[in-house]
């Protein structure tokens, strides 16, 4: 009898996820802000610094939205940085003629690369990890090729567009749309179902193949849009523009409490919390003038620790 009730109690945890686990990222954020605040004599919470943190997060947030959908399906995307690189070059170039054109072309390029990712992944059944690593490599090469002579510079007027009052609303709107898409539409449900049980999703009439391709195209398009913001903020695009973005996105999402295997426990809020956590962490470490290598080490260890903490052990799948 005792055994049965204990077992029943354990089953309770399957109901909607552990409350503590859900709150952990917020607690972490609060603690982090506190710790860095104290250690830097509160310069970390000065208005100027806070503004810096926000500015450094635009591109990351937008791209993380796309990757969030991908990872909810249980797949990965390592090509985001390269998409930003290539799209930024095109944007910087076209902005000399027409800004609107540049923005649109950037989105189209991103969507095209995203579509290639999705297509290769779905039609040839190659693991998303391999496909996106390859496209990352390919387009990183393209980016390097296009900037061999010199970096591509954006026209001067773009610099003046780097304003909080332009970007913050834009990012907020995109966040809002992303949240709505995920939590409030049937599309969001389908994505979650694919992540939680792809075969059952297929047998429920969900068109898995086209949904996957669409999600990758969407993520690419979002990256293409973020490339505009990147171009405006950075001003000149080099061969290494955008490197590291893909792992930063993954780290942010993980910090935000998203389980890496995706599924129905994913919450959209992990995008915002995660990116904030990441930005605050980076900012704090930089303010404390910690050696860049040690910073990387901290990021790596933290990443692993949190993945372990958020991975659902109850899931009865074989972990590869």
């Amino acid at each position, binding site marked *: 009898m005792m055994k049965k009730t204990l077992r029943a109690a354990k089953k309770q945890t399957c109901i909607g996820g552990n409350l503590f686990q859900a709150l952990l990222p917020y607690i972490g954020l609060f603690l982090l802000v506190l710790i860095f605040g104290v250690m830097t004599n509160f310069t970390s919470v000065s208005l100027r610094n806070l503004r810096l943190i926000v500015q450094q997060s635009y591109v990351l947030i937008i791209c993380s939205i796309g990757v969030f959908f991908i990872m909810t399906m249980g797949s990965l995307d390592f090509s985001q940085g390269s998409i930003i690189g290539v799209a930024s070059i095109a944007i910087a170039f076209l902005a000399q003629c027409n800004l609107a054109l540049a923005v649109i072309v950037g989105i189209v390029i991103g969507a095209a690369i995203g579509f290639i990712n999705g297509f290769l992944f779905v039609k040839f059944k190659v693991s998303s990890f391999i496909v996106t690593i390859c496209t990352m490599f390919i387009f990183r090469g393209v980016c390097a090729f296009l900037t061999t002579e010199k970096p591509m510079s954006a026209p001067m007027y773009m610099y003046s567009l780097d304003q909080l009052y332009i970007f913050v609303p834009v990012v907020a709107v995109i966040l809002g749309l992303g949240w709505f898409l995920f939590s409030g539409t049937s599309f969001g449900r389908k994505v979650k179902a694919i992540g939680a049980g792809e075969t059952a999703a297929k*047998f429920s009439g969900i068109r898995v193949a086209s949904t996957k391709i669409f999600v990758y195209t969407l993520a690419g398009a979002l990256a293409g849009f973020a490339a505009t913001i990147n171009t405006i903020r950075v001003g000149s695009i080099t061969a290494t523009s955008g490197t590291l973005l893909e792992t930063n996105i993954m780290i942010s999402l993980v910090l935000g409490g998203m389980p890496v295997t995706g599924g129905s426990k994913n919450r959209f809020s992990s995008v915002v919390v995660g990116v904030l956590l990441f930005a605050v962490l980076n900012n704090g470490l930089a303010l404390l003038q910690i050696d860049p290598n040690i910073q990387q080490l901290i990021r790596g260890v933290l990443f692993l620790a949190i993945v372990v903490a958020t991975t659902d052990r109850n899931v009865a799948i074989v972990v590869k």
Partner: protein
Amino acid sequence: MNKSVEILRAENISKSFGNTQACNNVSLSLARGEVHGLIGENGSGKSTFASMLCGVYAPDGGTFYLDGEEYSAHTQVEANEKGVAIIVQEVGTLNGLTVAQNIFLGKEDRFTRFGIFRPHKLNRTVNEILKRYGFDYINAGDMIDSYDYEVRKLVEIVKATHFGPKIVVVDETSTALSQDGRDILYDQIKKISDSGNTVLFISHDLDEVLQLTDRVSVLRDGSYVDTVVSSESSTDQLKILMVGREIDRKYYRTDYGGTISEEVVLRARNINVKDKIFDIDLDVHKGEILGIGGLSDCGMHDLAKAFFGAAYNRSGEITTATGVKINSIPDAIKNGIAYTAKDRDNESVVLNASIRDNITLLALAKVRKGPVISRTKENQFAQRLADQMSVKMQGLEQFVAGLSGGNKQKVVLARWLGTEPQILILDSPTRGIDIKVKADIYSLMDNLRKEGRAIVMISEELMELIGMCDRILVLKNGRINGEFFRSKELTEHDLIHQML
């Protein structure tokens, strides 16, 4: 042969998985040199018992005694070393390895010297063994992938018996073999028994069991019922023991003499599925319960998938009453076809999602307010259906993974009822489910039928088909091999005759 010396005693063996009690204080005794049958309905615990004996699971309670000494095994290899082997129901060989590697998997040390393992010696030994069995046409060094299902089962037989184990468990192996394969199997069983060792023979085919065994033990709902001497028993007696006196024909439909409507709701013509189904034509009528039965490999499960638009490499046409062709799962669902899969956990439910999410996934259009999904509508919709099926749950938020088999199936049916289907394709709907839930499902089927919906039921349980269907089609090797109409006189013999 003195068959009264005990070789195995099981005392109060118990095992449960989550909320399901698979074995409940089962006590059994096997004698040396006998062929001992173990029968029971689906969910009776026979496979679980066998798995515990062979090291696949550890019992939660109780003890085994082998040859008088306490016995336990944590892996199949350990069980083998102690003299117990099993031929499993599903695939027991691994692709990507050779025949020889499969046979000696886990026992390579015999061929290893100073850490170096010698594949040539392994292959030579295995070829000798194969020759001993008369399987000259199987080559030890070949990849097992290059042989078909039946030959691979023969390799499994070799794997389980070549070292002369004291007890060999044959778990539902015969049902998937051809007549030739079965003959080989029976031959081996006789050899084992003649040499003084014991066979525990698990099967659904009661005639086969009575023919082959010395004694038969019966399990029901995880508990031990009785053991009878085969030569003094009959299939009727076994059936009564398996199912219990209080459940008889009332369990199933009680009406007879009705007519099947002329109105065709689903038409299948020239259906061919590569290697599985050949030239099948059939009609499904309004208000009909059409049963499809046969050996587990006869193609009926693939036929079910074909009706749902889920079969690969299918040719031929499946059309609805209005002439719409069904070629994909979305087609099927849009045209009012529902499908409950045999592989419940993978195809019918998303285990790691809540009951509510599972129920609403099929009917997203119905819980929307404009483009937005309304939480309230979702909850109402799901609650209504869950109540209708009386799902025993802790709440809509509970993950389906935490439910018992019967309740999972209730969620499955609840989901599909939400789509208001006109045609339901139920593949093995009561597999692994306890008696009470089975009765609920049968009565649901009867109600649906009376409402004018059509049901196609695929089942490996003949009693169920005979009890519930208006019409039964028997498949053999991918073709229709018999059609039977509902009647009080219909027996399992009639069906089995067309299945083999």
